[in-house]
């Protein structure tokens, strides 16, 4: 419990320093710069049950891209969050997931190359359990899972284009799924592969003026 609080504290502190930085740059430079979020825990594995299967708390981590901060679980039914993370599943605040104006689609290409969201883009909303705006499953959206090595690898060249709860736009590139932002070696122990996964490192740009241009 104590360690969890420590982790949260680390994330909050990192986030605050990033916000500070971003605000400064906002006022000086016109182009938006990416914010990096490190080690955002998303329902991390707590241990191995007696039946040999890993278990976790089973709770989403809610995140506001607008505020660049974790939103408490008590606000899950609000429009304060833009994305919610739960192992490799990513929700947006609309449809079956929330009451906001959210939505998303996966853009194939480079983060920096996506300067304007194409006008013919279709934002999807969550329709659990049949479909999600950010598709869930190996090779379907933003990651692959290798059964032989039990490792999750975010696909390069995938950008999650997000419509936030308030109807503004953001783009996200997920960079890593393991603690410390480094994918474990194939030969890592099964215990490490379980305990160090579900820590997101990602970069994002939120456009506060409501336009589709970053």
């Amino acid at each position, binding site marked *: 419990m104590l360690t969890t609080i420590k982790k949260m504290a680390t994330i909050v502190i990192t986030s605050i320093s990033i916000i500070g930085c971003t605000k400064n740059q906002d006022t000086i430079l016109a182009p938006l710069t990416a914010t990096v979020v490190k080690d955002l825990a998303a329902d991390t594995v707590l241990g191995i049950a007696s039946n040999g*299967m890993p278990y976790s708390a089973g709770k989403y981590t809610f995140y506001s891209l607008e505020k660049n901060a974790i939103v408490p679980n008590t606000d899950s039914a609000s429009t304060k969050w833009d994305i919610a993370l739960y192992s490799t599943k990513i929700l947006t605040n609309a449809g079956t997931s929330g009451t906001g104006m959210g939505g998303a689609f996966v853009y194939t290409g480079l983060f920096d190359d996506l300067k304007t969201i194409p006008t013919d883009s279709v934002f999807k909303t969550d329709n659990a359990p049949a479909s999600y705006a950010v598709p869930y499953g190996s*090779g379907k959206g933003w990651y692959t899972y290798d*059964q032989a090595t039990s490792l999750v690898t975010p696909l*390069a060249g*995938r950008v999650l284009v997000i419509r936030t709860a308030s109807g503004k736009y953001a783009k996200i*590139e997920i960079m890593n799924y393991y603690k410390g932002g480094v994918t474990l070696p194939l030969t890592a122990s*099964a215990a490490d592969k379980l305990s160090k996964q579900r820590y997101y490192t990602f970069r994002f740009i939120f456009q506060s003026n409501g336009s589709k241009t970053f």
Partner: protein
Amino acid sequence: MKVLKDTIQWQGDSVVVTATRSERKLSNLTVPVTIINAKTIQQTGSLRLTDILKEQPGLTMTSGFGAGVQLQGLNPDYTTILINGEPLVGRTAGVLDLNRIALGNVKKIEIVKGPSSSLYGSEAMAGVINIITDQNTTIPIQFSARYGTYQTKDLSVDHALNSKSFFYQGFYNYYNTDGYSIRPNSLSRVTTPITRFTTHQQFKYHINDNTNLLLAIRYTKEQIQNDISVSNGGVTIHSNGTENINDYNVTATLNHRFSSQLKTSFRSYLTQYDSKQDLLTLSGGSYIDLLNHLFHRIENQTDWVVQKNLTAIFGAGSVIEGVKSSRYDSEQLRKTNNIQYAFTQWEWLPIKKMTFIVGARFDQNAAFASAFSPKFSMLYKINTIHKLKMSIGQGFKAPDFRQLYLNFTNAAAGGYSVFGSAQAQKAITDLNGLGQIGILYDNYYQLKILQPEYSTGVHLAWDIEPNPSTFLSFQLFRNDIKNLIEVQQLGAYTSGAQIFSYLNIGRAFTTGGEFEFRKQITNQFSINGGYQLVITGDKDQITQIKAGTVYTRDANGNSRRLTMSDYVGLPNNSKHKGQLKLNYTKENGLFANMRLLYRSRWAVNNTNGNQVFDNGDSFADGYISIHASIGKNYKNGYGVQIGCDNITNYIDAVHLPNLPGRTFFMTLKYQINHKK
């Protein structure tokens, strides 16, 4: 002993049969051929086919489903393995385990590089490896006993009877190893305890001066003690049990010579490979895996000397084969295929310095489309020192039974299914009727009758022999492969588990160069070696990379476009390989050798998920292994040999499970020398 004129006379070791399906001197061949003779096999202390092939230029051993051989960058599926010209069957996932073949009575091994389907049909896309046993020995009896690390025991008895009209040879081999574990604290052994028994019985009867009959039976029995751990999603399942393999081959050949211009040979060949894996998990669940492959072939080949500088070969045959497997819809029902084929080859020497060979083969199949395989090759002897060879040919590999009939659902790993292309349509329709199909992709509508995979290969060779003690050879090759059969996802169950089948979609190439040399330095001392460069690639992936639609990550973890300089080609391929061998032989029977083998890194796993093998993926490290052996053959028939393999104790348990650490062996031999 009288030797018939139409039997193969091993003049030195320079006669090759595999390249043209007729006896030709190595120096007159139009295609690149490597010969490994019995002396090399003995002096390196090789027991199984794998042991000697791994030291040959241009060949790489693979692990996974047994020890297979990769030839000029092409996977084990694409090389035909023959014993005395008859194909071995019993491949798992396309790999024929070369540890099955004992080398005790092998006279020589011929390796033909380049597409050879014009003579051998399906599978001979990369080349052909023909193991030729001794059918003329005059040694009445010989024994060999060997003991080595990991309690590896090998016993061989070879005896022969000769009379004016009759020849008999019997070979028996027993091999047993305790196996080894090179992973610390692992319950499972990388190589499990194995017992193998092989016998090869050969009878030859000279009916008259122009006719002889050959009957050969080979039988191999193998028992493997399995102790397997399978990890999936952090859950490890241990199971143990045995795997029993029974493999027999029966050949009957009638050779007849009508005249010095015309001879013919009728061959009938029957082989069966039967494997049964019977496992019990520690929790009590049982797992049985069966494979039974039956192959019967009759063939006639007629050789005609049209005129002094023009010879022709005509051949025709019929194959009936069938496979039963527990991985098909019914393990009782044998899936069958019939093949009828005909081939011809014409060899023309317009002038003494030039040889042209043109050949073609047509294979008509019941289960899939037919194939036509032409080949052209030539030799130009510029002078006594320089020789140029050129060949261009088409090879093919017919879809195998697994690609047609597999019906496999892996309950242990998420319930995914793989259906052979002949089964997929019906299986999915049936599942759909039960409401189990969640989604079908475009690939499903692309399902059609599988076509053979085709390769076009071009080989160039320049041989230089400045003096009898020096030989150099430079070779260039390129193979272009189309119609590659690849596993593709067709859709998914309602549960989300994936459904796969096979489609003809891939295009690939392998290209490179080889350099070989031999030098007799003194009467006793010689050195030989080689270097090979192999570059491979998936043509569709290269198109995508050039179009800028393949991505990887930079050092900061940000995505960037993959460039061609990041691309490494096909997995499990080393770009550089080299061999260096030092040999010492004395007239008194003393011999010693040291062999250095080098292989550069190879891609093993697509870790960055972009489907393309590039510098951002995981590789097995390149390595050098060193082997040495010393021995003496005494005039009274006794022989003794000791050896050490992998002297530097190089171990890579994950990527090289077939390479144990340093091992030692000692062999004792005795043979009754024949009296003239």
